[in-house]
């Protein structure tokens, strides 16, 4: 049978390579932070007739908003659409209202889908909150797993979690997907779910340790435990990934990045639980 613990170096290398690219990307291009973090204005409106980017741009230029991002909601590559998404920097309420009034008078009637306006001061606070939340969750898990299992299990499990979180953050940086305030909820769900898979395997290792024969090496024990849980690991993740895929495909634009974050996190979660957590524990155990 294929031995997971013997190939640990390959698996961890793949992970570390992706993370290295991710960290490089974070340093070079950083993140695409949404208005929740850096402040700004999003206006998403649907006109009663087709409009082009130029139509909207003309109106915005008059209000010194020439450098705003204007997106049309088109499925094909047509140059006009009824729905328009306008992103600007932080705006005073009256500037936004005047601009909207001008859009109305110069282009035509429209319906508001969404208008979001976030001031600058909240962003850094959100980042701080997110980091605290994730670290607190790690500490709680270290405590719980140390209590229920022992410290080496806790260390391996939390290392796996750190990898999962870093993985999601890396992908969002590499592909420059927009990060909004729901991102932190996605990260913590990933933490909550990925730990689940690791615990199931550790629980098996703990159980198998009780009847552990000296003839069986630690590597074999880890491999057997992982294999005994393999069907469960695969099935459970299939069902969860089904549901996340359903959210990505059918859940609509507003929730898509949230679902992407979970999709990557859960996928990384299976990878770390099945291929990394057990061998990491083994490494710690042998080092004692």
């Amino acid at each position, binding site marked *: 049978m294929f031995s997971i613990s013997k190939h640990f170096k390959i698996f961890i290398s793949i992970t570390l390579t992706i993370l290295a690219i991710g960290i490089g990307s974070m340093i070079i291009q950083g993140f695409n932070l949404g208005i929740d973090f850096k402040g700004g204005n999003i206006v998403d409106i649907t006109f009663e007739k087709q409009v082009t980017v130029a139509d909207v741009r003309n109106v915005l230029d008059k209000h010194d908003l020439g450098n705003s991002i204007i997106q049309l909601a088109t499925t094909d590559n047509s140059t006009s659409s009824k729905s328009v998404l306008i992103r600007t920097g932080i705006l005073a*309420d009256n500037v936004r209202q005047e601009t909207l009034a001008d859009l109305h008078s110069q282009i035509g009637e429209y319906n508001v889908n*969404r208008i979001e306006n976030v001031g600058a001061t909240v962003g850094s606070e959100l980042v701080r909150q997110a980091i605290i939340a994730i670290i607190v969750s790690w500490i709680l898990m270290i405590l719980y797993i140390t209590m229920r299992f022992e410290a080496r299990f806790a260390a391996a499990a939390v290392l796996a979690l750190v990898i999962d979180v870093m993985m999601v953050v890396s992908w969002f940086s590499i592909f420059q997907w927009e990060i909004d305030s729901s991102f932190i909820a996605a990260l*913590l769900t990933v933490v909550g779910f990925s730990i*689940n898979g690791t615990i*199931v395997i550790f*629980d098996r290792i703990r159980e198998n340790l009780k009847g552990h024969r000296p003839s069986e090496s630690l590597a074999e024990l880890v491999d057997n435990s992982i294999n005994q849980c393999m069907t469960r690991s695969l099935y459970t993740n299939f069902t*969860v990934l089904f*549901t996340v895929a359903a*959210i990505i495909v059918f859940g609509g634009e507003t929730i898509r990045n949230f679902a992407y974050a979970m999709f990557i996190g859960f996928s990384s979660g299976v990878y770390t639980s099945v291929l990394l957590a057990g061998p990491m524990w083994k490494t710690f155990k042998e080092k004692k």
Partner: protein
Amino acid sequence: MRWDSMTKFLVMTFAIILGFTFYAKPVAFSIRQGLDLQGGTHVVMQAVDTPDAKVDNDAVERVVQIIERRINGLGLTEPTIQRQGKDRIIVDLPGVKDPDSAIAMLGKTALLEFKDVTGKTVLTGKDLKNSKAHVGQNSQAVVGLEFNEEGAKKFAALTAQNIGKPISILLDGNVLTSPVVQEVITGGNAQISGSRNVEEAEHLAILLRSGSLPVKVEVMETRTVGPTLGQDSKDMSVKAFGIGTISVFVFMLLFYRMSGLVADIALLLYIMLVLLAMKYLNATLTLPGIAGIILSIGMAVDANVLIFERFKEEIRKGKTLRSAMEAGFSKAFTTIFDSNITTIMAAVVLFYLGTGPIKGFAITLALGVILSMFSAIFVTRELLRFLIGSNLIKNPAFFGCAAPKEVRK
């Protein structure tokens, strides 16, 4: 075949299926919906220090009360206002028609002043008893003021001393109107003209009778979701929910046959329980919250997968269906417990450190985990006990597992 067990199984199954068919939808739609689903405006305000007035706990409490009065004046269904942290106030206005004017009204200090011609302040908003908007002469929208006893005296004195001279009525330092006093007014009533329309007069009246804010309040964040987008989001969530759930159901049936069917029935009950819990805990259903529920369905089967895999292992060791089932449940229990506790811990952290919709998501996540433990462990176990106890099915193949040939009887 033993009919008593079979009857119990069938009764439970049909009760769950019927309950789900008739109540799932009405219950789901009676849960309070967040602004992202029903449309409306979310406003975050912050009380800030000025040289005149410093922010303290008492001031923020008063701000909350005054803003609450202002919102109630708007006549919306179920607006909410809550204080967050030291100096933040969060207001949700579902279904508000003109968000911009509502937002402008919420954060206004609304300090009313009556000044005489020398610029001395004689009366303020504190001297008011009530204010109402109505249509006055020439179909002009005006705001009628009614002074309290003290105010009426001051106003009478002000008008008496300024006959033929203009007095100014100011709101937050801006002159609303400067009428010339014609005669002494002793009745304790006055009128402010100059509103552009009835709505503007209405808002001014609400502001004046709610009182002025003790400290300066700044609007930090506003989010408006139009009713169309809200409806779209709802439709899409329903679709994602349906498709996600059906794929999980089919998956369980394919891989675990009878056990899968039992797990699916328990899952129906689980969905009902989550919806009922949300309804009676008065939780708010948001878009991330729905995603959380859909996701929790995927997670809820995890406990069943764990149990059924143990069940299959025990069958392979040669145990009978009944004892393999019992062993499967008891051996999987600690695993399920430990792994779910850690998930709940993540949800609790999210609840304490998150805000608004994120809190809602944390609640659904935690509820989902707890209820799924109940449905996957207790409900599935009872159903399987009845089913196996009925002796209807003796071949483990029906439970998705092949027994070793030599022990199959």
